């Protein structure tokens, strides 16, 4: 942060969970932010306040509470549109999370636009949520799924994309803005420029990027953009699909039910306007409100400050971890091309054993395949350990991580 330590301390005070201890009275060192983030009082209080004071169903009833609830819900939509620089708020669709957003696109857009022999392109470093929906779709349609490969530096091989685009059969390229395992930031500009030139739609999975850096979706120029609230201080169970209006208008509804209709007759129904056409049933109102509070919190700190803080932490961690004998770090060392996610393996010790031993010191890191088995195969490993940072993490916590790895080395006689 710009005003360094004092503001960081203030930030930590906002997170009640960071005050607790775990295991044998060890202060919690939470380094699993790529998986989910902790919540500040401001978010917890917003949800609490909603249930205590404003709870009602939205968009229908005329009484005071319903009006308040609707306003809170729709205000959050405006905040989110503004946060990712989208002019048309009707293009912001609330979903459960990035996974549901991508499945919505695969179902509502994919099933009517993908035909036999067409190609959907994804990448080798995608999360399962940006692979499996496309497998389901292409299998059903007898279409083909292709992968943009990854080089040994953890960066995408864009020549692969050119090769697929040349076939003239590609209908969609779906890729993440930032890898959840390697932290690689994709060369989004190059990918979208190539796709636009070829008249191919693009879907960007922003789940890892939006929480950590300023993302201007309008400027990106993609056609679909997805991200989740819980990875950016918001509650679980709420996320966003943004899609260009002209594309949304070519899509069939995802779920049928209340709120998504204009008129329902015995044998036919007309659809509600955007975005409601894609928001069937009573939505997750309280968590939308909480998500809005998270956006306020992040905006107040400033996304550029957050990115700067994480660059410093990541640089520090890369230096410290590189000095641990036997520790192998995956992905690029070029800090401008990576976010605050560091995957590593420690000699021949299985990541689960690493995670369990350092858990004794109160340190929470992730171990496993991180829902990216295609990438694990590419790296030729069964699993990795992963430390991922956020606004409340400190250099002292990274020191603790490094110290605890020395304990692993002792136990495993490395």
């Amino acid at each position, binding site marked *: 942060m710009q005003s360094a330590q004092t503001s960081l301390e203030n930030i930590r005070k906002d997170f009640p969970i960071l005050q607790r201890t775990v295991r*044998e009275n060890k202060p919690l060192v939470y380094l699993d932010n790529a998986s989910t983030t902790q919540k500040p009082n401001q978010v917890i209080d917003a949800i609490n306040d909603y249930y205590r004071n404003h709870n009602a169903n939205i968009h229908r009833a005329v009484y005071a509470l319903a009006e308040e609830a609707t306003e809170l819900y729709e205000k959050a939509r405006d905040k989110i549109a503004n946060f990712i620089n989208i002019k048309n708020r009707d293009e912001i669709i609330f979903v459960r999370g990035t996974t549901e957003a991508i499945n919505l696109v695969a179902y509502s857009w994919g099933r009517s636009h993908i035909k036999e022999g067409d190609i959907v392109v994804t990448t080798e470093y995608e999360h399962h949520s940006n692979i499996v929906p496309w497998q389901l779709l292409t299998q059903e349609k007898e279409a083909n799924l292709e992968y943009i490969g990854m080089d040994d530096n953890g960066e995408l091989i864009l020549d692969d994309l050119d090769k697929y685009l040349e076939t003239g059969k590609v209908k969609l390229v779906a890729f993440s803005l930032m890898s959840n395992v390697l932290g690689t930031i994709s060369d989004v500009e190059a990918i979208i420029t190539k796709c636009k030139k070829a008249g191919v739609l693009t879907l960007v999975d922003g789940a890892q990027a939006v929480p950590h850096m300023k993302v201007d979706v309008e400027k990106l120029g993609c056609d679909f953009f997805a991200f989740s609230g819980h990875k950016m201080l918001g509650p679980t169970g709420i996320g966003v699909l943004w899609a260009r209006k002209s594309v949304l208008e070519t899509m069939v509804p995802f779920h049928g039910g209340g709120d998504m209709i204009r008129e329902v007759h015995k044998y036919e129904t007309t659809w509600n306007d955007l975005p409601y056409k894609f928001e069937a049933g009573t939505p997750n109102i309280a968590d939308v409100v909480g998500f809005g509070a998270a956006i306020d919190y992040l905006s107040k700190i400033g996304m550029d400050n957050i990115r700067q803080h994480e660059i410093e932490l990541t640089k520090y961690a890369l230096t410290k971890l590189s000095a641990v004998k036997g520790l192998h770090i995956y992905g690029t060392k070029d800090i401008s091309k990576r976010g605050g996610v560091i995957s590593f393996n420690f000699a021949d010790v299985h*990541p*689960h054993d690493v995670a369990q031993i350092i858990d004794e010191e109160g340190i929470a890191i992730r171990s496993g395949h991180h829902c990216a088995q295609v990438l694990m195969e590419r790296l030729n490993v069964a699993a990795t350990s992963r430390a991922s940072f956020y606004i409340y993490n400190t250099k002292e916590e990274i020191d603790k991580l490094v110290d605890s790895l020395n304990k692993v080395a002792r136990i495993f006689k490395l």
Partner: protein
Amino acid sequence: MSNADIYHEMIIDYSRNPINYGKIKDHDTTFHDSNPLCGDSIDIDMKIDDGKVSDIKFHGKGCAICMACSSVLTEIAKGKSIDEVRNITKNDILGELGLENLQAVRIKCALLSLKVLKFALYSYLGKHLENNPDVDKLKEEAANLY
């Protein structure tokens, strides 16, 4: 017990130098399974002669707990009759390594190989003993191990 205490000498030794690690080319039965959440992945090959497990080997990738338990399991099973092997319980494995109080999230690491062994045996018995209702019990037991 403290969770780090599970990493005692025996576990580390077994994971570093697994016993019965490898493949059996002319096996009589084999089975593979993995734990979807953690990626532990184990294959067990068995040679069966005169109703006995004359040879057993495992291979795959896993954490120290998984590798140590696979080693112990194959040591226990080797040379035993089919009946004895099918009656190996989870406590036989956990007890051998002092893992009786292993936390729930790691139990699957410890018992994956036992599950694979039981399925391998089930597949062998299914092929060799027709109409034996007892065999289905084994499958059910394996499927519900953890």
